[in-house]
């Protein structure tokens, strides 16, 4: 027995996954090191073994070479990790919301257990829920990989054909961004359900200071949530179609929301915050939404119109 060699092999064994066959790997490394020390350094002694071991490589690197090509999740399945996590998280989010609204705990045996939480505690529960979902999907994909069979996991394959629709000048939609948006939206929704406003200073059960009167705050919070919801909806739609019409519909709905906010009768009163009056805020809110949405709408319509004209021109030339 050579303590240095056995310690080295022991350390390699910590990193070797899967464990099956590990003893054989270690026996072969042992045999090689002893052989090399005996043949190249003139004898097997602790000193010679230490020199051979130093040249063999660090235990993690040695183990890594045996695990090349041994993926926990097959490369073809990696794309499903965030996709399926996204779907699961949306379901999870809905259950959390239902638990919050019904003021009860929720159990979807054996996968989900949502304890009865307060509004703020729900917000802190969201990252935990996401990590749990990611882990659950990861375990599922791990077992699919271990099956070592060619599997086709289901995924939505919906493509809308919209009339005269140039590709929108937006970047490719990303699942992780959608998840972040949903988390953000969920958090805002949680704040709204807890405090009945999104416009306040400070957060927490104590120490919050509303910026506006409840009726005004309630109305603008709902409008803001609706605008964000429309934005997320249009982002989800981009997974299925990159049509410019998506932007048209999104901006049209945003303009509609701005219009409703503008005509809704609210009695203006001086705000408790001296620098920001309710009337100033309301006007600025509507103006920002109208200008950004109108600009987006005009740009999209211009691009669609240009495409129609170009197609018509091409058709005329072809004839």
């Amino acid at each position, binding site marked *: 027995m050579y303590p240095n060699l056995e310690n080295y092999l022991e350390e390699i064994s910590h990193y070797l996954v899967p464990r099956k*066959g590990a003893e*054989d*790997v270690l*026996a*072969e*490394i042992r*045999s*090689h090191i*002893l*052989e*090399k020390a*005996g*043949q190249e350094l003139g004898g097997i002694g602790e000193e010679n073994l230490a020199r051979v071991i130093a040249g*063999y*490589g660090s235990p993690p*690197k*040695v183990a890594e*070479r*045996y695990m*090349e*090509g041994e993926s926990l999740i097959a490369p073809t399945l990696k794309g499903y990790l965030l996709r399926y996590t996204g779907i699961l998280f949306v379901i999870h989010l809905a259950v959390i919301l239902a638990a919050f609204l019904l003021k009860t705990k929720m159990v979807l045996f054996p996968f989900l257990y949502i304890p009865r939480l307060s509004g703020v505690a729900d917000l802190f529960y969201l990252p935990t829920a996401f990590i749990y979902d990611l882990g659950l999907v990861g375990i599922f994909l791990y077992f699919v990989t271990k099956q070592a069979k060619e599997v086709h996991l289901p995924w939505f394959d919906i493509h809308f054909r919209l009339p005269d629709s140039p590709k929108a000048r937006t970047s490719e939609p990303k699942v992780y961004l959608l998840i972040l948006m949903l988390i953000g939206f969920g958090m805002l929704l949680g704040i709204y359900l807890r405090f009945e406003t999104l416009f306040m200073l400070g957060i927490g059960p104590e120490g919050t200071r509303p910026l506006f009167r409840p009726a005004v705050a309630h109305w603008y919070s709902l409008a803001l949530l609706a605008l964000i919801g429309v934005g997320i909806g249009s982002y989800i739609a981009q997974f299925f179609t990159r049509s410019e019409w998506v932007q048209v519909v999104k901006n049209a709905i945003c303009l509609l929301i701005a219009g409703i906010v503008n005509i809704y009768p609210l009695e203006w009163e001086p705000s408790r915050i001296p620098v920001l009056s309710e009337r100033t805020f309301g006007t600025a809110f509507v103006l920002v939404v109208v200008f950004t949405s109108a600009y987006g709408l005009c740009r999209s319509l211009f691009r669609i119109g240009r495409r129609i004209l170009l197609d018509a021109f091409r058709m005329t030339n072809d004839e």
Partner: protein
Amino acid sequence: MDGDNSYLEVEMNRGFLQLLVLMALEQRMYGYGMIKHLLALGCSLDENTLYPLLRRLEKNGWVQSEWEIRSDRPRKFYFITASGKALREQGLAIWRQQNVIMQKMTEVSHVSES
């Protein structure tokens, strides 16, 4: 540019080393002996490359192994299987074909240069 060279070497070695080992295993060999054998032919092969490669070949059924005790020392001997021989022939055919293509390519580039 050393990094680029090592990347190219790794990429080009992927199939080449498998073929080389399958050819070397025409006779039964153990790992250390194979490294020495290939070194004598001018191919320096790292033990951390050879042993994992042998395991992958064995997992696919192209080589088999058995432990033997010689000179009071256990050694794991490898030998090629029938499917390994078939793979080796296919690999050699590909290698020859690639050689022909490469030869033609270099001739064409020589002509265009001159």
